[in-house]
């Protein structure tokens, strides 16, 4: 299942102007989305592991790219949260 409003937030931030606005004032933008309290808290905490369970992985990646998290940091958080890590094949 997907969290619709979290997905909608991430989808809307694909628009560069909206992403700029979000980076400047997250709270103001978040008021437009009826997020569940625990989801809103995870968004404000940049909780990659929590949010990863709720949305499409591409939208998750777009979101954290839009907020300026470096890929290396994003990937490290994903791997730290992985309950079933597998041996790396070829890692970047």
């Amino acid at each position, binding site marked *: 299942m*997907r969290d*619709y409003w979290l*997905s*909608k937030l991430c*989808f809307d931030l*694909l*628009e*560069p102007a909206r992403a700029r606005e979000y980076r400047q004032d997250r709270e103001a933008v978040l008021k437009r989305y009826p997020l569940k309290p625990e989801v809103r808290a995870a968004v404000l905490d940049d909780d990659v592991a929590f949010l*990863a369970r709720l949305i*499409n*992985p*591409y*939208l*998750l*990646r*777009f979101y954290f790219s839009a907020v300026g998290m470096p*890929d290396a940091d*994003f*990937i490290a958080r*994903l*791997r730290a*949260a*992985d309950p079933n*890590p*597998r041996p*790396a*094949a*070829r*890692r*970047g």
Partner: protein
Amino acid sequence: MAELVGIYAASHGPLIARDWHRLSDALKGRLSAAYGELGRRLSASAAEVIVGLAPDHWTNFFLDNLPALCIGIGEEHGGPPEPYLRDFTPKALTGDPELGRHILETALTSEFEPALSYRLRLDHGLCLPLSRMKLPRMPRIVPILINELEPPMLSYRRCFAWGGLLRRAIASYAKPARVAILATGGLSHSIGEPTMGEIDEDFDRRCLDALARGEESELIDLLERGAGRAGNGAHEIRNWAVAHAAAGGRGFELLDYLPAPEVYVGCAYAAWRLA
């Protein structure tokens, strides 16, 4: 009558454009050579129309309305919205409404049920390869966008059926037109998953080997069992499956394969043998 003059495939990893300046000279050289060779072949084919097979990266569709497959039948399609493709030209791509509509109608009378759009926005999925191919003249384009991001998706068996349908539709188009097919995406890669940055080179090479030999049942089995484990980006191999079936499963020439962790993608480039 229309003529199928070429069937090609290329990866489209966005970092190939966004991070181009950071890539090693060796990688840039091979990527440029692969896209350049595809561009040379496509130009030599004198294709007037490209049927472009690609995923939609949340550009046109969202959870509100997410077709399994959508055919662009408009006179014009929008260029890429991604900031790293801001230099892409033309800003709008000329469509081919008559051929698009013919493919759509052929599908609907053959028990396929695609969605339609009179104006799609074409993201890096199609525009990155098209820009890197450096075509002297941009052919008209009939985009076919397949949902390859959000499960559930078309089965690989159904993708092969779509390829056969596409072949029949082009062959039955009454107007003279030189038509090429360009499939983009894949091979193995992960986006937004813990395996992001990993490439399943073994899967990629088995896949390429099966595509080169053209054995459909082996390919379907390999893709149905293995693609889901090669990263969520590997779902894009559906476009290769459609192209393979459209070529009649006669195998292809692999132009290059680069397992490139720098761009997170097992990058492959190929041209199919035509009947």
